[in-house]
């Protein structure tokens, strides 16, 4: 545990040592605000809730999280520091967890900095703060799932651009698998069980359920399972690819 903390701290330091952290946070906040106000009609709806704000998070993460995740392992492999890291007395699991947790904490910091939205709706009306809290937790869990996918893919390549593009593509599939685009492709020929399976893999479906205030533990379990699965894949991939 202590070792994981040391790795998390180093990773976080390296985020803030470069402009990456500030660029990411500023763009995340600017886009989250713009989308909520102008596309989501935050004010015109006349409702004191954060649904227009949260409903854009999957699409925001789709673009921004791959940028955060792409460097996790690709950079270590390109610069050769992976050899240094993995010959220190730490296990592969500790290394993977440490790097993932650092990026997750970082995305949590960016998410937490959206608190003025929460203040705004509380000043303007009486929102259901329980739903807002659940939405924040849901958004954080979803960010974790995107990051786990990105971390595993980042271990596949030394090239950060490839890591970015592939992560974005895979994340897109996970996001839209519950939307009309994916289901339209399947409907008419695929058995209902397949359609249900695809729908149940969708980040969007699970996240929207949380945001609507339908608090179901299964949605949280889904994201945690995705994180667990991809981090496990991550350790396997790092082990396989580290020598190349």
């Amino acid at each position, binding site marked *: 545990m202590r070792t994981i903390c040391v*790795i998390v*701290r180093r990773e976080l330091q*390296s985020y803030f040592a470069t402009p990456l952290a500030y660029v990411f946070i500023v763009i995340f906040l600017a886009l989250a605000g713009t989308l909520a106000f102008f596309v989501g009609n935050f004010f015109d709806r006349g409702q004191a809730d954060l649904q227009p704000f949260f409903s854009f998070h999957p699409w925001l993460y789709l673009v921004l999280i791959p940028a955060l995740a792409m460097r996790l392992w690709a950079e270590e492999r390109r610069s*050769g520091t992976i*050899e*240094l890291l993995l*010959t220190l*007395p730490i296990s592969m699991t500790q290394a993977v967890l440490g790097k993932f947790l650092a990026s997750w904490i970082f995305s949590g910091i960016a998410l937490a900095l959206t608190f003025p939205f929460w203040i705004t709706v509380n000043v303007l009306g009486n929102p259901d703060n329980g739903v807002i809290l659940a939405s924040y937790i849901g958004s954080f869990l979803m960010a974790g799932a995107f990051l786990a996918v990105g971390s595993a893919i980042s271990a596949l390549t030394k090239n950060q651009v490839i890591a970015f593009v592939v992560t974005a593509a895979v994340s897109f599939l996970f996001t839209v698998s519950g939307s009309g685009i994916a289901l339209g492709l399947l409907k008419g020929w695929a058995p209902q069980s397949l359609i249900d399976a695809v729908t149940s893999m969708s980040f969007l479906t699970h996240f929207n359920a949380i945001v609507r205030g339908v608090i179901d533990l299964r949605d949280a379990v889904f994201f945690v399972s995705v994180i667990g699965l991809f981090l496990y894949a991550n350790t396997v991939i790092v082990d396989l690819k580290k020598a190349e």
Partner: protein
Amino acid sequence: MARLDADAMVDVRHLSRNFGPIRAVDDVSFTVGRGQVLGFLGPNGAGKSTTMKMITGFLAPSAGSAAICGADVASDPITIKRQIGYLPEGAPSYPDMTPPAFLRFVANVRGYRGAQARQRIETAIERTSLQSVLTQPIDTLSKGFKRRVGLAQALLHDPPVLILDEPTDGLDPNQKHEVRNLINAMAPEKAIIISTHLLEEVDAVCSRAIVIANGKLVADGTPDELAQRSRHHNAVRVVLGKGADTAAQELGALAQVAAVEHETDDEDDKALMIFAREGRSIVADVADLARVRGWEVKELRVERGRLDDVFRQVTSSS
């Protein structure tokens, strides 16, 4: 290969590693004991780095095993990583960190905290002379300083086993000298493996050298033993003055002489390299002949053998 000492701190047995169809390391065995500095020689791509990666637990071997201080690398990776200080090829380190921040990370991962960590970091910085670059990100440092940051990281926990992949690559002659002094100073209480393709380095720091080519171990011995396999072993270099026109033929006719080569042949001086048959001592014969013929001997030197020769000989034949 004979096992020289029972209490080997590094014990490598029949190590092999395949990359797809390529056999990068092929059945390499050796041991290194306390107080030994083992020079790992070989052409680029011979398998030096791959062998080191397997000893340090970074790469799993395709066959064979390695043990550090009695612990098996495959079954006990964390234990052996605590015993090893490792400078990977190219001395990688995190470019956005300063040397002290980087060393603090390594110290913390190795379990040092607070004052103890500070003490370790200070000592490592002192030993590798990093004092002048403490505030600069590693990214901005010269190649020599980067290498020394890597060395500092490897020495930090004062490990019983040091594995250094090309520790002096990219250093200027003064820095090379410093690093070699450092290695020599640490040698008595550690087992050290350094890889290099600089043969002078083997002479300067190694108590034993092994040569690998195409993944196979092709030579193992002290630098002197290896030098004896050179055709220059016991060769005599003479510089003769005027009036020794027939010297080459006459020296070549001596019973123990294998060959004579002209090194330079200008108006005044004639420099000859006289090779001995099977490394026998021929200096007396050469000196006698010169005296009898009345040649003016300006210089006369016995060669102990050249590692370059041996290196080329053993690595090109396989």
